[in-house]
């Protein structure tokens, strides 16, 4: 076969495959958006042509007339959204504060039990959350952490911290210690070396890992379901409220999901230029 023809065919195949995958990946999102615009009567039809309505968005944001009438459970979506925002960002901020120095230490220093410690962090992600949730919930009730912001943020560290540490560790390992030593000779204290030299170098990894950590925390369902209650209810848990014993309001649920995915998408788009580099780099080096 002519090499140019082969090249053309290869690119057609790879483009075709990507388009198919793209549709496969994006169709649920499209479906979710469509459902969120449907009224209750059209909900279970598969027609793409229907009269769109903003009724669902109105209901979840400004109160549902049916909830007021006692037909369905009252879901305070704006408040839950705020809860999700608080616990997810809180979890990421604490993970950053703890994880960046931890990753640095694991990359730079040799100490006894270093690999064991690193593996322990990683192993937080091994066990299914369901395995630890019962003992955790008992402990939380004992300690008074049940249904508190702090409690949820703390338990989210199981999700966010390992990711940050492992991605950033490989970034720090790639930076030659000579650079830090050069800055030391140049007369900078360690925190300035960190801020002016190291941080810009790990920024892609930091951005990517922090975003992923945020997404994982935001999407987490089981921890806030079991360890939170009325005070710290997140959007993932509150979505259950749209299903009553008599009827499931999937259109409301879809509207809630659309709004709930906005922060993640905004974050992902805003750091897109770091994201691809950051993740592929970390993954290959991992």
């Amino acid at each position, binding site marked *: 076969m002519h090499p140019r023809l082969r090249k053309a065919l290869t690119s057609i195949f790879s483009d075709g495959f990507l388009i198919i995958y793209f549709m496969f990946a994006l169709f649920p999102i499209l479906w979710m958006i469509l459902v969120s615009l449907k009224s209750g009567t059209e909900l279970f039809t598969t027609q793409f042509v229907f009269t769109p309505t903003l009724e669902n968005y109105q209901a979840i944001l400004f109160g549902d007339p049916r909830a007021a009438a006692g037909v369905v459970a009252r879901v305070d979506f704006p408040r839950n959204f705020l809860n999700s925002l608080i616990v997810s960002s809180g979890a990421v901020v604490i993970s950053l504060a703890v994880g960046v120095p931890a990753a640095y230490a694991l990359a730079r220093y040799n100490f006894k039990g270093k690999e064991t410690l690193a593996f322990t962090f990683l192993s937080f992600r091994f066990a299914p959350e369901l395995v630890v949730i019962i003992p955790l919930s008992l402990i939380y009730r004992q300690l008074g952490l049940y249904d508190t912001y702090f409690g949820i943020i703390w338990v989210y560290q199981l999700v966010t911290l390992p990711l940050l540490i492992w991605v950033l560790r490989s970034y720090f390992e790639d930076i030659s210690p000579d650079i830090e030593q050069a*800055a030391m000779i*140049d*007369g900078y204290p360690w925190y300035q070396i960190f801020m002016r030299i190291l941080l810009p*170098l790990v920024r892609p990894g930091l951005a990517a890992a922090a975003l992923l950590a945020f997404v994982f925390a935001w999407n987490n369902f089981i921890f806030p379901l079991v360890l939170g209650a009325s005070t710290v209810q997140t959007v993932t848990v509150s979505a259950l409220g749209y299903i009553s014993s008599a009827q499931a309001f999937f259109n409301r649920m879809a509207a809630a999901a659309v709004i709930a995915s906005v922060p993640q998408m905004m974050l992902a788009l805003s750091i897109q230029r770091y994201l691809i580099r950051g993740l592929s780099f970390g993954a290959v080096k991992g």
Partner: protein
Amino acid sequence: MAEVRLDHIHKTYKGGVKAVVDLNLIINDGEFLALLGPSGCGKTSTLRMIVGLEEITSGDLFIGNRRMNDLEPSERNAALAFETYALYPPLTVHDNIAFCLRARQVPQAEIRRRVHEVAEMLEITDILGRKPAELGGGQKQRISLARALVREPDVFLMDEPLSHLDAALRAHMRVELKRLQARTGRTTVLVTHDQLEAVAMAERVAVMNFGVLQQVGTFDEIYNHPANEFVAGFIGEPPMNFLDCEPASQNGETSLRASDGSFSVKLPGELRSKLDKQTVSKLRLGIRPIDVIASHQASGNGVVEIAGQVYTYESLGEEGQLAAHVGGSEVLVVTSPDVAFERSQPVWLQLRTHRIHLFHGDTGAAL
């Protein structure tokens, strides 16, 4: 500018590895000294102790007349050009060079003046706005030198500065570095494993092995009067030949006989009197490959010649390299281009006896 004095310096790493043992060395004010040795000989540890990146286990380090042991790297006014250059990737070339001046709160106008001055000296003014990642090895090298020089250090240290450059650039930078040092007149220490670099640039060479300083001196001193077998074998290319010998008496004169009986050599008067003063039973005879003359036939003119057999021969154009078996040992010879040799041929080796070096068989120290 200052003199650097290392006084009984020891460095022992965690786990008991002795990197530097009892090092005494004075680097004179304005001198260019090379620390030369194979990898793991302690030369880089020494350098890092001077600059302050490595703690001194015991002993005293003076720069000028100040004891430096307990001072931070930034307080020593010693600059180090790293082997890996260690440039700051997020900063431009200009900011890389200015970085240390900013730490000292030097006024902006003066920073600009000094950066440009040093950039001009190193011919990098045209790349001041670029980032290190866009530049080649030679340019990075210059930036790392500029960064070290811009602060006007008392001592300028270089760790294998040329090892990552290609051959042509390396030869060029050797000359350049020497000129730079002459121009700035700063006390300079170069760490290298490459004797050619040391010879080409430094006024004096300090040879180290296994953490121990073997010999300090000009290259001539080290080449012609090596203090021990290690220095003799390490300096010079191709390396010196060593043959096991013992003193023997021939017509009342002391001569040398090979331990395996394969040859005996008459010694010139100077070496003979040196040998007569000591009682040694085992000796090592050292002779450089260029001080051996190989021929196909015995010359028969009364000079002592050693019979051997050609093992390998390579013609390298300007010269040939011959390895011959003499008894149980191998002798390397640099031959003239007009004689060729074949494997397994008999060969006659004549030693330039006044170029023979003698070492104690047990200690390796020169007689």
